[in-house]
């Protein structure tokens, strides 16, 4: 029987698994020498050496199978199950699951950071993700997405952000422990000065050579994409923005373009520039730390890792034709129809709650005041959110912030956080009660 995978792909996967096997062998050797270096006879190092050698063997078997063109393929059952599962709940299970898991995972990562930064744990997560990526590659639909030349930066982004998040937290955990013991932070130990020539200029030279090398290899292996000549007559489906803007495009599901494309990006830029002027915490300047800057680090990491990077990944891998959600192994069917039963808050309030038809408002109150009175519940809610919440926070949970920051800084901080929270809030409202707009005045394009 013909093997379902092309020979070229099998070779590529074989080489991939071979590299991962070498990686694990290296890690096993590292543990072996770690055991010889530490004179305290804990014995764990030997166990880890054996463990990672075995893992290396597992990857080696994979490499062998694919190089001999008889590699295993992800079973139909798994693929169908994920597609079915993510399509539950009117097709909303996918986004709900994805966003919820990223947020839960993020919170767990920060809370149990001491656990997650341990080399063995971080390495285990990396190996599981590499194995999952390898197996996913045996699926046609997944291949189609990942092999698009312009999608190559996405795996690079995932793994580099993952690696550097680990690196930062690893260092932060060490520094926090040192601070708790009253010792100087790691960076303080490297306080003496060295000459820039040769130490820095050579580092820079090596970095430039490595970067050039990687770029040339990348450029030789992968051709830049060139599709059919541009025509305004035929729009591709899906039409996607460049990958770094896919987080913004994802926001279009929940907000109109004026919010998702203009107001929120503007707030991101203003918010980023404002950070040094809001952050009144003078600790943690010039070294990695979490304990000294819990609030700032958590908020920033949430914004960058969860709201920016994971939404880019979502937009790349899981959004197909008509920007519908598709499971990772699901065929991108342009005719996939999802029930669109989203309703506005005004409808929920007046029609479902007060049994008043929405058409009456314009007749009774005129073209100008009709829509405004119709949308009063939503306008009131937004007003309360923007103007009543900050003083409330200042008097309750964020009282200490308010007292230390002063009025202007506090209002700026809370406003920026409110805009940041606007996306998750709208997501939850959409999933929970199918809410389309909180305020809907399409007459002047004012929909929130």
């Amino acid at each position, binding site marked *: 029987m013909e093997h379902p995978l092309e020979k070229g792909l099998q070779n590529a996967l074989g080489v991939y698994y071979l590299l991962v096997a070498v990686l694990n062998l290296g890690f096993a050797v590292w543990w072996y020498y770690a055991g010889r270096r530490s004179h305290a006879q804990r014995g764990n190092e030997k166990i880890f050496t054996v463990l990672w050698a075995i893992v290396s063997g597992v990857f080696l078997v994979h490499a062998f199978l694919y190089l001999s063109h008889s590699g295993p393929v992800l079973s139909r059952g798994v693929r169908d199950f994920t597609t079915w599962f993510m399509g539950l709940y009117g097709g909303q299970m996918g986004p709900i699951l994805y966003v919820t898991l990223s947020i839960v995972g993020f919170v767990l990562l920060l809370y149990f950071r001491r656990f997650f930064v341990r080399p063995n744990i971080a390495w285990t997560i990396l190996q599981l993700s590499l194995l999952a990526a390898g197996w996913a590659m045996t699926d046609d639909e997944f291949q189609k997405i990942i092999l698009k030349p312009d999608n190559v930066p996405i795996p690079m982004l995932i793994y580099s952000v993952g690696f550097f998040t680990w690196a930062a937290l690893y260092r932060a955990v060490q520094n926090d422990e040192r601070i708790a013991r009253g010792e100087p932070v790691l960076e303080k130990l*490297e306080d003496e000065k060295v000459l*820039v020539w040769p130490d820095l200029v050579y580092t820079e030279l090596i970095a430039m050579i490595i970067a050039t090398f990687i770029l040339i290899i990348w450029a030789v292996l992968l051709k830049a994409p060139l599709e059919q000549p541009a025509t305004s007559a035929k729009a591709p489906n899906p039409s996607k923005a460049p990958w770094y803007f896919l987080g913004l495009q994802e926001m279009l599901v929940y907000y109109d373009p004026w919010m998702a494309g203009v107001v929120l990006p503007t707030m991101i830029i203003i918010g980023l520039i404002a950070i040094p002027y809001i952050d009144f915490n003078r600790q943690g300047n010039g070294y990695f730390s979490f304990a000294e800057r819990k609030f700032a680090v958590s908020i920033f990491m949430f914004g960058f890792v969860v709201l920016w990077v994971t939404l880019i990944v979502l937009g790349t891998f899981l959004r197909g034709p008509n920007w519908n959600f598709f499971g990772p192994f699901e065929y991108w069917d342009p005719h996939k129809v999802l029930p669109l039963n989203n309703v506005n808050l005004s409808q929920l309030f007046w029609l479902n709650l007060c049994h008043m038809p929405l058409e009456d408002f314009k007749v009774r109150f005129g073209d100008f005041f009709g829509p405004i009175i119709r949308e009063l519940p939503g306008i009131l809610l937004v007003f309360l959110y923007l103007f009543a919440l900050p003083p409330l926070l200042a008097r309750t949970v964020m009282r200490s912030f308010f007292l230390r920051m002063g009025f202007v800084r506090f209002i700026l901080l809370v406003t920026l956080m409110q805009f940041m929270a606007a996306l998750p809030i709208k997501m939850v409202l959409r999933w929970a009660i199918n809410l389309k707009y909180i305020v809907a005045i399409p007459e002047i394009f004012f929909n929130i």
Partner: protein
Amino acid sequence: MSVGDFIRNSQVWKSIFRHPAPRDRRNRVVVMLTNVFLHLHPVSIRKSGIDLSYTWCMGGLTFFMFLELTVTGVLLMFYYRPTLEHAYNDILILRDVATLGILRELHRWGAHAMVITIWLHMYRVFLTGSYKPPREFNWGVGVILLVLTLLLSFTGYLLPWDQLAIWAITVGSNMARATPFLGYEGPGATFLKVGDVSLIHSGSDARFILLGGRFVSGETLLRFYVLHCVAIPLAVAVLIAVHFWRVRKDGGISGPL
């Protein structure tokens, strides 16, 4: 006398490098002060400033990518004309005729890499609290550089003039028509009118300014080309100078106080 010594003692060599090779402490200091490129650096630096587990090297790599993109970009300009008639064909010819050509690949992958490295640079600077006083202003300059980098990448995306390009830019620039007050489908735009004549319509709104037309067209191509090759790189170059200058003036690469 060896050939090396002969060259190093020649008048030409000495006119270029005014000091002996940087082998001893004195000349390692002098070399940093007498070379225009090297003098962007300080003479000496805190040891943590060259520790990769602290700096991640991402800012430096971002700058290197900018240089790489400038060089490959200038070379690409020899092959490319930003008109509806030529743009796509020029890219085709570049792909099919230039043997072993990887110019466009180097430029495109370098651009992707620069977006990632600049994000990681910002991530590192934040996580080490390096934006804190006295570096508040330089953080702001960095944010503007980040935005300009994304705009550079975005404007460059259109230039091949294929389906991928035109529709990505269409999706991206459609946002501009929803700009509050300034986009013709933005909230409040309907209020801006003189008598019955509305000031903001599809021929006068923010998107029209961006695209030079009501949709992505030849005018857009020219506009994005000029922005991509001249206007934004110039702005970036100036801001990089400010950014580097302020790194030095605000106390060098950050470190614990």
